[in-house]
């Protein structure tokens, strides 16, 4: 058994900065756990504390039931894949992969056997006698994985292992990593800032922000029932749309229409301002859905600013007149996406909304379209602290 338990783990740096705040996390034996969050959220620090590369300021880390706080990395029996692979440049692929076994005093024939076995798994057999400098990015990445798997350790720790690969290779390696992990059934902690990676790879995903754990759950739980604005905005691509709403006497007033609150399991139901979220796929072209619009949801008119057709999907961008939504949790996400794409559009008094429509939809740019929104899928958040007001999310938290 090699479950990993973090119990109240905190990391305070010498300058007083708290990188990880009182983190509790149970990672079960054989589980693939993803730590995800924007850069600087403490996810890598948390991983490095599990590895033993970073001291633990307070709290306890247990691997396989034993407290490892005071053990050096070499005594924790874990293998780590680094973001830049950290291959030993003066050693061949074979030596790189066998280095840990050699240090452990395993005899030569056994090392050769294990290295060749791992090389077969990773399709590296013909490269065993080459140096890392002569390998391509994808091959180096596989060597780094190979170095981890020959050890048969208690756990794999991976620190953004795919972020240095180009987009196509990343998708390919992603499935390979997933296959490898399910075959080996070794407990894995995987750090990434890419929510797509998190959603596709993980058995469970832990979302972090500013050193604090926000929500831990399966990808579906995070997607359907985010506990707060941050998780709602971070998980999902394109991101969830947000708009201001007002609860008044059992009715929820939105820029696109009015909803009866009885249909939503909203907790408390105090009158006042709320932030409302709705995912792009919960919109549809009225002409496409037909009867469904009568059962639930609201229809509204919108002037389409832009249409992106990807063949399988069609994204329609439109805007609604509103004051906009203010929340520091969302500001974190916007900053991150600005950093990554270098683009971002903020217009005063307008809120940009993305709708994912059926590809047969006939909506056109600069024309007014009849759209439908599935109000059963609305997410409501407290504008003060960003927490979800829906019961289902409350219960998960």
């Amino acid at each position: 058994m090699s479950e990993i338990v973090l119990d109240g783990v905190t990391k305070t740096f010498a300058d007083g900065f708290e990188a990880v705040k009182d983190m509790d996390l149970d990672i079960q034996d054989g589980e693939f756990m993803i730590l995800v969050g924007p850069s600087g959220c403490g996810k890598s620090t948390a991983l490095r504390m599990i590895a033993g590369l970073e001291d633990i300021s307070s709290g306890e880390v247990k691997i396989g039931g034993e407290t490892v706080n005071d053990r050096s990395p070499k005594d924790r029996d874990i293998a780590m894949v680094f973001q830049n692979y950290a291959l030993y440049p003066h050693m061949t692929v074979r030596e790189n992969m066998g280095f840990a076994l050699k240090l452990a005093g395993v005899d030569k024939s056994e090392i050769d056997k294990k290295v060749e076995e791992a090389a077969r798994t990773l399709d590296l057999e013909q490269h065993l006698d080459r140096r890392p400098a002569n390998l391509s990015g994808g091959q180096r990445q596989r060597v780094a994985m190979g170095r981890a798997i020959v050890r048969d350790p208690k756990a794999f720790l991976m620190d953004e292992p795919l972020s240095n690969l180009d987009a196509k290779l990343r998708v390919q390696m992603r499935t390979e990593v997933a296959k490898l992990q399910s075959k080996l059934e070794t407990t894995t902690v995987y750090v990434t800032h890419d929510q797509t990676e998190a959603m596709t790879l993980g058995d469970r995903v832990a979302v972090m922000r500013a050193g604090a754990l926000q929500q831990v759950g399966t990808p579906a739980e995070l997607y359907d029932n985010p506990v707060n604005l941050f998780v709602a905005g971070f998980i999902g691509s394109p991101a969830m749309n947000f708009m201001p709403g007002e609860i008044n006497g059992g009715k929820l007033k939105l820029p696109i229409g009015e909803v009866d609150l009885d249909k939503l399991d909203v907790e408390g139901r105090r009158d006042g301002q709320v932030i409302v979220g709705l995912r792009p796929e919960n919109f549809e072209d009225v002409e496409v859905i037909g009867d469904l619009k009568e059962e639930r949801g609201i229809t509204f008119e919108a002037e389409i600013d832009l249409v992106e057709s990807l063949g399988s999907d069609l994204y329609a961008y439109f805007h609604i007149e509103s004051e906009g939504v203010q929340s520091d949790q969302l500001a974190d996400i916007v900053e991150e996406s600005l950093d990554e794409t270098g683009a971002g559009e903020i217009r005063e008094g307008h809120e940009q909304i993305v709708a994912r429509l059926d590809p047969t939809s006939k909506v056109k740019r600069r024309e007014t379209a009849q759209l439908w929104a599935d109000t059963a899928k609305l997410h409501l958040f407290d504008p003060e602290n960003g927490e979800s007001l829906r019961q289902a999310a409350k219960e998960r938290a």
Partner: protein
Amino acid sequence: MERSSRDYALWTIAIALVVIFALIPVLWLISISLKPPEALTDQKFIPSDVSFDNYKSLFEGGIDDSPFIKPLINSIGIALITTAISIVLASFCAYAIARLEFPGKRVILAGALAIAMFPPISTVGPLFDMWRALGLYDTWLGLIIPYLTFSLPLAIYVLVAFFREIPWELEQAAQVDGATPFQAFTKVIVPLAAPGVFTAAILVFIFCWNDFLFAISLTSSDASRTVPAALAFFTGESSFTAPTGSIAAAAVVVTVPIIVFVLIFQRRIVAGLTAGAVKG
């Protein structure tokens, strides 16, 4: 394509000019060293009859009578000892500066730079007096100490620059792989640092090997006089012949070890072994 082949041609010409400019004096020196005394002034670049008499005269009379063997031993000994001490000390210092945050780090670097900038000539006078008082005048130690003073800053600078380039994540990777800190250092960091250490060692060795100022000022006999200083005391066959031929021969002999050194290690220096350690 046309553009790049023209660039290539221009570069080739430029490099050829530089190489010719640098090599002609050396070839000239070799030419002189191979001429008999009476042909020295024949104004021929290629000697009409080659003679090795100048080289023979250097080593004539064995260790006691030869004007060259004892200085050669002094040069090799002093340069090697200085290089060894300098590299060991500079490695420790550079490692600390590259890896650790400690108060006074900038002061050490600034101090090293200041010493490297200091004109050696201004230390010669005081050293001469001090060394005579301390009994270090005309000893190996008397030269090794000032050489260390001026070679340490050089070695520290080269090594700091080099150590900073080493991806220290490799050390952590080794620790996760089960290495003790000492193993991580010897099996991963040292092999990567080796080219930098060789570079620094060669620079220090050449500095000591070439020095004339301290060698001429702080020695008085073959007990510690190094080759560059000894060349100045060469005598001709008679009091009327200049020792040009033997000086040229000696210059060629002392140049050879440096060339061999650099040729052996240049691949290690240039190789840039770290390529491919991290994403490239």
